């Protein structure tokens, strides 16, 4: 039953499995729903879709698989009352058009044809070239029963002309995102090194038992909580060519801030020079000297640059090459310094890896960070984190 449906769902990228299929069958077996298409739609939706971003895709697949199958299912055959037909005609026809139709034959004849067409339409439930329900030119309403169409007879039996799944109410939520925050976090987890540091605020049970046994009286031992001791410096490129990647970088950033306790982040533009900043609105007023960073944060910090590395080669190689200000020392100098102070340095590039070779500056920067440039994809992040763990300070 419905194997076709499961296949189609999987083809559309909804991770439907055998397990869910069994659940659906079990639910049908237990009469969870009344036997109507809508209820079946709701049930299968709640079984197969677990992410609101996929709801719209599900609606489309459902429509494709069950189109025509469910139309008359569990409902009375259509009968169209005479006066209602008239009402429709009057509602949608201008007097001129009425005349034009009348020239085709008697009113009764026309109505008879319309009735037939409507019935036929009901069965086929889609456009075609018949004049009831095709796009625009028909006098009986523009798109017939189709989603965007005029719902002929909204109050009558034809209410079901527009199925719930055809409304596609969840269209806005569909996001074919490549990286969810969860996935990013899982990738970042590679970079964990647990250590107990700081104030003792957790009961050390083993220590306490041992101490108590040794002393003969209750000896409570406390210890600091286990934290991820990895320290991270994050440099983010902002503005200009980075704009298309804002969403992606935001996700990475939010995942990183929740994953690492010792995280410092700074912004730069295009290439690293003598100053960076923490607040983009006050980037000119409140700058941090890059030297200060190199001095303040120890060698055990790991450095991650996030930027597209797309710029004019002069911005890297020449003093004064920066597009925004006059830099006394070239970008190469600064990047070399950072790579020297922090052996664990990687550059994460949101631009797809395939395009890197087209940009001179990308190749140069990749060289400057010792070849450790990774694309901002799950695999890339994973590799970058591995690289960082491998490079012990």
């Amino acid at each position: 039953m419905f194997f076709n449906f499961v296949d189609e769902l999987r083809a559309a990228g909804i991770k439907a499995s055998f397990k869910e299929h069994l659940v659906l069958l079990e639910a049908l077996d237990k009469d969870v729903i009344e036997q109507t298409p809508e209820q079946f739609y709701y049930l299968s939706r709640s079984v197969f879709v677990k992410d609101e971003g996929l709801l719209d895709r599900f609606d489309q697949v459902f429509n494709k698989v069950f189109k025509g199958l469910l139309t008359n299912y569990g409902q009375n055959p259509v009968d169209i009352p005479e006066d209602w037909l008239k009402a429709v005609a009057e509602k949608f026809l201008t007097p001129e058009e009425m005349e034009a139709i009348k020239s085709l034959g008697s009113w009764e004849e026309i109505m008879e044809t319309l009735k037939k067409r409507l019935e036929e339409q009901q069965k086929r439930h889609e456009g075609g070239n018949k004049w009831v329900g095709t796009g625009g030119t028909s006098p009986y309403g523009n798109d017939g029963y189709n989603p965007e169409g005029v719902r002929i007879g909204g109050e009558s039996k034809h209410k079901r002309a527009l199925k719930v799944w055809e409304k596609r109410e969840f269209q806005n939520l569909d996001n074919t995102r490549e990286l969810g925050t969860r996935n990013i976090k899982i990738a970042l987890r590679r970079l964990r090194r647990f250590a107990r540091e700081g104030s003792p605020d957790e009961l050390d049970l083993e220590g306490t038992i041992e101490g108590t046994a040794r002393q003969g009286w209750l000896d409570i031992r406390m210890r600091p909580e286990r934290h991820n001791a990895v320290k991270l410096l994050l440099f983010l490129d902002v503005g200009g060519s980075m704009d298309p990647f804002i969403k992606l970088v935001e996700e990475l950033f939010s995942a990183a801030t929740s994953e690492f306790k010792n995280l410092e982040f700074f912004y730069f533009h295009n290439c690293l020079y003598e100053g960076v900043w923490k607040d983009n609105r006050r980037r000119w007023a409140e700058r941090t000297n890059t030297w200060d960073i190199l001095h303040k944060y120890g060698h055990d910090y790991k450095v991650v640059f996030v930027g597209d590395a797309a710029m004019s080669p002069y911005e890297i190689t020449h003093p004064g090459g920066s597009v925004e200000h006059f830099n006394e020392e070239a970008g190469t100098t600064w990047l070399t310094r950072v790579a020297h102070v922090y052996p664990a340095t990687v550059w994460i590039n949101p631009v797809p890896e395939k395009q890197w070779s087209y940009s001179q500056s990308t190749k140069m920067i990749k060289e400057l960070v010792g070849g450790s440039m990774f694309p901002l994809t799950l695999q890339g992040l994973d590799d970058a984190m591995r690289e960082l763990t491998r490079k012990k300070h």
Partner: protein
Amino acid sequence: MRFEGTSNYVATDDLKVAVNAAVLLRRPLLVKGEPGTGKTVLAHEIAKAVGAPLIEWHVKSTTKAQQGLYEYDAVARLRDGQLGDERVHDISNYIKKGKLWEAFTAPQLPVLLIDEIDKADIEFPNDLLQELDRMSFDVYETRERVEAKERPIVVITSNNEKELPDAFLRRCFFHYIKFPDRDTMQAIIDVHFPGIQKTLVSKAMDVFYEVREVPGLKKKPSTSELLDWLKLLLNEDMPLDVLQQKDPTKAIPPLHGALLKNEQDVMLFERLAFMARRQN
């Protein structure tokens, strides 16, 4: 035992199907949706509708899965051992039952609400997989097995702060509470404020949906905010024409504190009003 919504909770058809499926098949129901669309309230209403007691487990960032099963108070036992208390010989005296245990062994079939599961550590849902699937777990200290006589009805809410693992999702029914359209919203308001003036509601809803349409809002106001706001408007006896005025220079709706919960959003509105004034 069918869930049809209650006298003070408006349930849409798709929600009813999802709830009934979860209740009949006894699989967890995962509810997502914008904050304030009635996720937590739903569990209360299901409990009320099926006449079952509600056990609430509010998850925080520090909550561990184990705490839902049981906790072993080793320190108390050590202390009692020192004092020569008789209780010390029975380890089960120091086992504290968690919410899941409570739900599994409740005399009457309960509804278990696991609220805001996404708040906890990223591994939290994975740690509960087996327990929720089999509805049983082992207590290692006393070598006993806690097993649910009847599988409880489990409702899980999530705010989408963290995504949930696939294996966990496979075991749940899922429902996304979509933001109510005007008709549903009208029904919700009728349930909460019977006899409220129709014009006030329709004006307030105009303003409300307009506010939601403003691009760039950090936190869009939701159902619960609209209800609070209406309550305030009623309390203050706000004259109707205040809501009606279409003067863009006063873009901030009256008593906006109930609708806009974020100072950046209030500032956004002030800026819009300022820009409108300058244009005139």
